[in-house]
């Protein structure tokens, strides 16, 4: 009996992990390619969910339309996350390259992205208040029972879906021309410029991908858990950072493994030690890993050392 309950928790943990995967990949892309710890990612995630909710509830602002279909609303939410991410690129990352002869220079994009985190979060708080909102979608309660285990079909689909997206991304990075350019920029931006890569045109692609991954992940969350809130990004964001570090900074497949590990350890420690123990387990694991194996499970040695 205990064994079956634990197995059910493992299933739940993997499902929870599927939410973290996409966000963790967004973090790892920003770090791996641009050497930039992008703190706007939780805000982009929240933005997609809240914009989707607001559209499906009230329609376009200023009375331009009635409530919108939930799927279309979430789609617009994802577009909003991508646009916001491009805004961050324009005002945060481009000024990164202005060199100032000081060691705090590496903190410039980090601090600036913290500023954007506040801006996005408080725009939504001003507009909609701080309550958690119910988000009803077509999938209300589709549980699939096999041999006593409960598997929610939308969750299973979203796990498969997020792994497929990330796998596609990984192929894109390896095979396509853009992917090769991105990997060149990751290795050395100056050398990439000399080799004829237009860095200013390629870099926005990373930010589009970041916005897309956050938006997709928020849509999956809204469909599975039927709720959104202005603080939804904080919880997922911190867990995704943990997932990124566990998998290794800059490693896409590491982020997948890390997301699943974080989801598993969260549900298992809640099951065995109570609700608020998850925080200690996940962050304790992260701290131990940072100290004893800072490259994570699949990480690259050169990333994130010395500079941001």
């Amino acid at each position, binding site marked *: 009996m205990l064994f079956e309950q634990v197995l059910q928790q493992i299933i739940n943990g993997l499902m929870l992990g599927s939410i973290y995967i996409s966000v963790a990949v967004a973090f790892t892309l920003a*770090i791996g390619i641009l050497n930039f*710890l992008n703190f706007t990612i939780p805000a982009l995630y929240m933005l997609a969910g809240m914009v989707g909710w607001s559209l499906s509830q009230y329609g376009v602002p200023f009375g331009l339309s009635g409530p919108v279909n939930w799927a279309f609303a979430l789609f617009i939410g994802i577009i909003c996350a991508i646009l916001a991410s491009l805004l961050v690129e324009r*005002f*945060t990352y481009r*000024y990164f390259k*202005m060199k*100032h002869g*000081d*060691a*705090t*220079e*590496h*903190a*410039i*994009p*980090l*601090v*600036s992205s*913290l*500023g*954007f*985190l*506040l*801006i996005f*979060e*408080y*725009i939504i*708080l*001003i507009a909609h208040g701080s309550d958690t909102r119910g988000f009803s979608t077509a999938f209300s309660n589709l549980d699939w029972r096999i041999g006593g285990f409960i598997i929610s079909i939308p969750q299973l689909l979203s796990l498969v879906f997020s792994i497929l997206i990330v796998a596609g991304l990984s192929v894109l990075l390896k095979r396509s021309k853009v992917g090769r350019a991105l990997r060149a920029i990751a290795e050395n931006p100056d050398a990439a410029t000399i080799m004829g890569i237009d860095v200013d045109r390629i870099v926005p692609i990373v930010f589009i991908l970041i916005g897309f991954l956050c938006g997709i992940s928020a849509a999956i969350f809204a469909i599975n858990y039927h709720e959104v809130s202005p603080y939804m990004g*904080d919880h997922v964001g*911190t867990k995704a*950072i*943990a997932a990124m*570090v566990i998998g290794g*900074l800059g490693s896409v497949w590491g982020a997948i493994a890390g997301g699943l590990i974080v989801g598993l350890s969260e549900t298992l420690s809640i099951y065995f030690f*109570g609700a*608020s*123990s998850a*925080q*200690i387990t996940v*962050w*304790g694991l*992260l*701290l131990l890993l*940072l*100290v004893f194996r*800072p490259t994570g499970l699949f990480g690259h040695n050169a990333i*994130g*050392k*010395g*500079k*941001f």
Partner: protein
Amino acid sequence: MSGYLSGVLAILGINIIFAYSIYITAATGQLNLGGAGFQAIGAYACALLSNELGLPIYLTLVFSAILGGAISFLIAFPVLRTKGVYMVLATFAIAEIVAGIILNTDYLGGPTGMIVNAYIETEVVLVVAVIIVILGFYIMSTRIGLAMRAVHDDEAVADLMGVDKRAIQVGAFTIGGAIAGLSGGLYALYFGFIEAQYFNANISIFVLLYVLIGGTQTAWGPLVGASFFTLIPEALRIGDDWRFFIFGVIIVIMMIFRPEGIVTRDALERVWRQLFSGKRNV
């Protein structure tokens, strides 16, 4: 002094002390994104000592600083093995773990928080803040301050020049932890109630922003940064949500036009020259 004014001044004092704790670490080139954790340690130490043992206020404050310093000294060795973005994440993780432990310990009140019996006046907070500011300026004016500046500007060269890099970094981290503990103790005594949820990631982020916006090059930075971001919203009298929105806008604009903070070494030199040389020279 009206109740409103004394409340604002107390928050200002606590914020300035907290900002100096992060500044001392940042002055050696390390970013500490776990300030709230050390503040929480100080606050709970202070609350327990005064509630359970009935120690006098000044002793509890000293103990909360000592405990904050001792714990950060122990943590410094594993944490300072990490660098750059890993260090930011490691300190962030520590703050989360401290909050998690407090939430899970019934003796510390868990999620319901804890009432502190002792009470201090605004004046005490302000006196301690002045002492800490003077201490910050003093440290930066000594040879240790020079060594910290050297490590901040270039670790490898400072190491080559015979600066004991590791001792400087561990020392700065420990002093920072002690000052953060002190600010937590003051917070607990002034507000009379503490809960783990208050010491969250946002607090760590804000205090780091005060320091970086103020500027890490001189000891003026945290004083100017913390005062600026505590007093300006009060002066404008705007709602809480708008306050943080404008805070974010200011940060983004500042990073574009003045990424090294409000107060820099160059700016200070120019001001001094204008004030004391009598004639203008550029």
